[in-house]
């Protein structure tokens, strides 16, 4: 493990009953890297990203964040890292946004900083206003999620994650539930985050987008890493038949 490693994964396995979804994954994620995870549905990419912040507890193997082993418990004795601390460092954006419907946009964003980081309401709100500006939704601060479009909801969800000042962001098919015309506004926000050096892992079906912003792409198949390389190698010059077959379904 290099000193620059944000997350490392060793021998990660995950089974649901008899179904083994991840069959031994080894992975290094460096600070500032943008890692794209692609693969057919059922290949285990969502399960992998969910294991990275312990929303799924691995059956075997270890996840290390900043060199510390992650425990599935909320609080874990040092040097292990509990999920409470883990999730303050590693944020997650979901396919279905999962905004809190009973809270306004502003209260959605400050809920983590106020409840978890114990920031005062006013400092959390001023940070939240900066973030809303970044995602272009300052005028929606007092709206409830039900009154937003899908693209707006996802941008609020991104702001909610960023409010925790995470070191790594995990994005799990964040545009898959959006109408096609709303995808662009969300990708634009993510593109800016990448440009600003945010470390990210993104599971995506937007191949063109992955090619644009990822520094490395992993092709997963059947619970394993099948291919790994630069976007140029993986997406533009695929060598294996399986990968070529997979990509052809996207490029038409």
């Amino acid at each position, binding site marked *: 493990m290099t000193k620059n490693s944000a997350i490392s994964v060793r021998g990660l396995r995950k089974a649901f009953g008899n179904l083994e979804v991840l069959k031994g994954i080894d992975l290094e994620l460096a600070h500032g890297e943008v890692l794209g995870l692609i693969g057919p549905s059922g290949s285990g990419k969502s399960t992998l990203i969910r294991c990275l*912040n312990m*929303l799924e507890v691995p059956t075997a193997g270890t996840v290390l964040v900043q060199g510390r082993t992650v425990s599935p418990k*909320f609080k874990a004795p040092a040097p292990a890292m509990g*999920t*409470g*601390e883990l*999730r*303050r460092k590693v*944020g*997650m954006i*979901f396919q*279905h946004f*999962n*905004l*809190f*419907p*009973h*809270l*306004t946009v502003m209260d959605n964003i400050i*809920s*983590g900083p106020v*409840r*978890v*980081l114990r920031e005062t309401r006013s400092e959390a709100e001023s940070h939240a206003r900066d973030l809303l500006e970044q995602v272009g939704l300052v005028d929606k601060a007092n709206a*409830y*999620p*039900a009154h937003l479009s899908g693209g707006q909801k996802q941008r609020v*969800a991104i702001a*909610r*994650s960023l*409010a*925790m000042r995470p070191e790594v962001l995990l994005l799990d098919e964040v545009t898959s539930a959006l109408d096609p015309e709303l995808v662009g506004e969300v990708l634009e926000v993510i593109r800016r985050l990448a440009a600003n050096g945010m470390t990210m892992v993104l599971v995506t079906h937007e191949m063109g987008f992955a090619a644009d912003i990822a520094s490395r792409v992993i092709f997963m198949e059947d619970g394993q890493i099948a291919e790994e390389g630069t976007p140029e190698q993986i997406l533009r010059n695929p060598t294996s038949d399986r990968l070529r077959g997979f990509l052809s379904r996207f490029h038409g």
Partner: protein
Amino acid sequence: MYHWDFYMIFQSFDLFLTGVWVTFIYTLGSIVIGIVVGLAACFARLSRFWWLRLLARSYQELFRCTPLLVQILWAYYALPMILGVTISNTMAGLLTLALYVGSFYAEIFRGGILAVDRGQREAAASIGMSSSQAMFYIIMPQAIKSMLPSFINQSVIQLKNTSLLYAISIAELTYMTSVVTSETYRPLEAYSMAAILYFAMLFPLTQIADHFERRMRRSD
């Protein structure tokens, strides 16, 4: 043609007022205790420990599947025999009502919590909340909104159920009505008055509840 005469009924109005007050106190007391018991039983049913789930389940089924009147009579007459202690009618009445409504509340609470999307728990976890913070700040506020209509419904039934305390001579409204009847020989007027008083207690409460429910729907 029956000749209605409310004069004597109005003369005993203080007895009715006592009944209204006692009914109100038993309703409020049993609802407050019932909420505590219901919450405990609800979280026991959602617990990781099978024996807690079994315990809560047994309690619920026992109280849900026997008639309240039988429970009240049993608590007042049979239970003291078994335990060898005296139990006042106040204690037997209040606790039976509370445990009865608690068993229904538990199911209402549980349904409300389970109805909240799983993604909410994950989103709360993803911003570093503990499971109790997630429950308190994220799950419960949403669950309360969806469980409110059934909760109010059950509480309205609860006020009317206090009339069964008549059987163990607690001075609630129905019992006091029978007292008035025996003093005035005017049962039709007395029970008409009782019905009016029950309605007068509940109707404003349901209206207030509706108002709050509408207010909570602002975020939809």
